[in-house]
């Protein structure tokens, strides 16, 4: 390693950054076949099916002379793990079909943008406490970086849908972009509350802020944001928003099979379709990582080891491989949740999607932001106890206002007054029918 140190310091920095980038991509890229297998098996189990369970099983012959004697009649099971690899080989060796009237450049660009977004999303996530290896760039706007990159995700879907020259693709792309824009707002506001609690946009500082005792006095639990009332509300909203951002069921309106064939990727096949799928699974995994970094204490386990006298665990967590395994564990938990929700909930209708985003998530996130700000201010000025009392009072007021607004009378009022794009044409035709003289029966 001495020749590395003899290099120009700038070149050393560049090489270190490259190494960190590779270390950030591998843990996202490598598990993709496993994630797909895991989803198919878990989904099958939840739906009382079997799923892919036997690709790659090897049974050696009992009688052949070619087999050494200790292998005769032996069975080796891979539990279907090779299925994803077989699918991948199939996708990459199939005949590549591109419809004739597509916009070729954009058609190729679409999946590449989706992949770019999925790969670069994790650029500021710390995978462990070892600052030599992660994160790629510990910039002081780490959380905003995640927001920026995830907002680019719309381009992949939009370009794919537009360039396919297919009305179903275009409809899927329009739905995708409208959905991403709507849910980004609630996501940003819910994260803003956590930024105020932490006092920093740096991902490493967000993790460090979650190492203290819970709420300042429960010694053996870490102060994970999800355990605090503000963090619980924010985390709930953020979770729903990442489902919408990754276009997963029940928010997969952009590729609703029963309405739009396959949505934005109707015309895609082979490698490019495979790239879309890979990007989706990698984005799922990386968003789980973002969730665990901001709300689940990053690369730490939910116990404060100093407080219960197990200090050696802290050094394990802070080493590269230890932190990486904890993050992977949290990523698998996140994926399980994704799959569980997919097996449980049916797809939303489009107006339900918009109502959820604009009329529920955004107001709740904003209310949470206000309560959090008030709590921080009062705690700083008057101390902890009045701060908690005041914030719970505010929560009660917010819930009361929400219930009042959602009561039947006000809902009717709001419905008649609101701009309902779905219902408007129907109302117009009703008006027309009423204004006509009823001489001509239909």
């Amino acid at each position: 390693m001495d020749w590395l140190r003899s290099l120009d310091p700038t070149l050393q920095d560049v090489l270190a950054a490259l190494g960190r980038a590779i270390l950030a991509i591998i843990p996202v890229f490598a598990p993709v076949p496993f994630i797909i297998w895991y989803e198919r098996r878990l989904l099958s189990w939840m739906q009382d099916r079997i799923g892919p369970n036997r690709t790659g099983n090897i049974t050696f012959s009992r009688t052949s002379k070619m087999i050494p004697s200790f292998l005769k009649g032996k069975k080796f099971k891979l539990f279907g793990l090779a299925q994803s690899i077989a699918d991948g080989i199939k996708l990459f060796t199939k005949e590549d079909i591109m419809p004739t009237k597509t916009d070729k450049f954009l058609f190729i660009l679409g999946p590449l943008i989706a992949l770019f977004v999925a790969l670069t999303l994790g650029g500021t996530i710390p995978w462990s406490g070892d600052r030599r290896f992660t994160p790629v760039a510990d910039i002081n706007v780490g959380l905003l970086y995640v927001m920026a990159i995830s907002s680019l995700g719309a381009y992949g879907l939009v370009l794919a849908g537009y360039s396919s020259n297919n009305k179903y693709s275009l409809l899927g792309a329009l739905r995708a972009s409208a959905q991403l824009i709507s849910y980004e707002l609630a996501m940003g506001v819910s994260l803003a509350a956590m930024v105020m609690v932490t006092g920093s946009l740096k991902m490493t500082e967000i993790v460090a802020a979650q190492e203290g005792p819970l709420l300042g006095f429960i010694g053996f639990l870490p102060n994970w944001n999800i355990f605090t009332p503000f963090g619980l509300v924010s985390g709930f909203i953020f979770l729903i928003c990442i489902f919408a951002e990754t276009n997963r069921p029940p928010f997969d309106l952009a590729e609703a099979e029963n309405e739009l064939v396959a949505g934005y990727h109707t015309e895609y096949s082979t490698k490019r379709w495979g790239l879309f799928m890979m990007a989706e699974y990698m984005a799922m995994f990386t968003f789980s990582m973002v969730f665990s970094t901001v709300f689940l204490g990053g690369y730490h386990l939910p116990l404060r080891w100093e407080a219960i006298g197990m200090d050696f665990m802290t050094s394990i967590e802070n080493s590269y491989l230890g932190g990486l395994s904890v993050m992977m564990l949290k990523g698998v938990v996140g994926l399980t949740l994704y799959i569980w929700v997919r097996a449980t909930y049916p797809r939303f209708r489009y107006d339900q999607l918009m109502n959820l985003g604009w009329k529920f998530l955004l107001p709740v996130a904003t209310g949470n932001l206000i309560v959090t700000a008030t709590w921080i201010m009062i705690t700083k000025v008057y101390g902890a106890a009045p701060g908690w009392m005041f914030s719970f009072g505010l929560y009660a007021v917010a819930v009361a206002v929400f219930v009042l607004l959602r009561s039947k009378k006000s809902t009717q009022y709001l419905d008649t007054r609101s701009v309902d794009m779905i219902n408007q044409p129907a109302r117009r035709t009703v008006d027309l029918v009423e204004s006509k003289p009823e001489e001509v029966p239909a």
Partner: protein
Amino acid sequence: MKLTPELIIFGMLAGMAALSAVGVVAFKNAVRSALCLVFTFFILGFLYFALHMEMLGITQIVVYTGAIMVLFLFVIMLLNLGASHVLEEKSDPKKVVGLTFGVALAVLLASQIVPILIKVQAPKAMPQFGSPQVIGSILFTDYVYPFEAVSVLLLLGIVGSVLLAKRRLS
């Protein structure tokens, strides 16, 4: 003039930004033009990164690339604007006049800017300049009234657009 890594990166980014900016006006297809504009904004964000202004660069990408241009593209796709084949004239006097004025403007601006810029070597901001903490504290102390005024202005815009959209057709 020494060839520093900063200069190389700046050259690459600035070249890409300038090329895609030309593409915005050169392409006939509206979607291509909009995409060139997206790329220009994206590269501008990277130019800010190269100057150690992470906050400004990220804001550039979030606001322009992520939000505004998605809406632009949305509208263009919704109206399904293709390339315009109708509006082509062989000899257009506007082209000559426009070119003359454009070159004149470029020379005028360059004569003011280039003599100053040519002395600058690797411009770099102070370490804490433009960090989120500094921007936040300045925004909420010295510039709190302009900040609130802008927020009221945006609110007016939202209320106005809702009012326009809410008007019943009957």
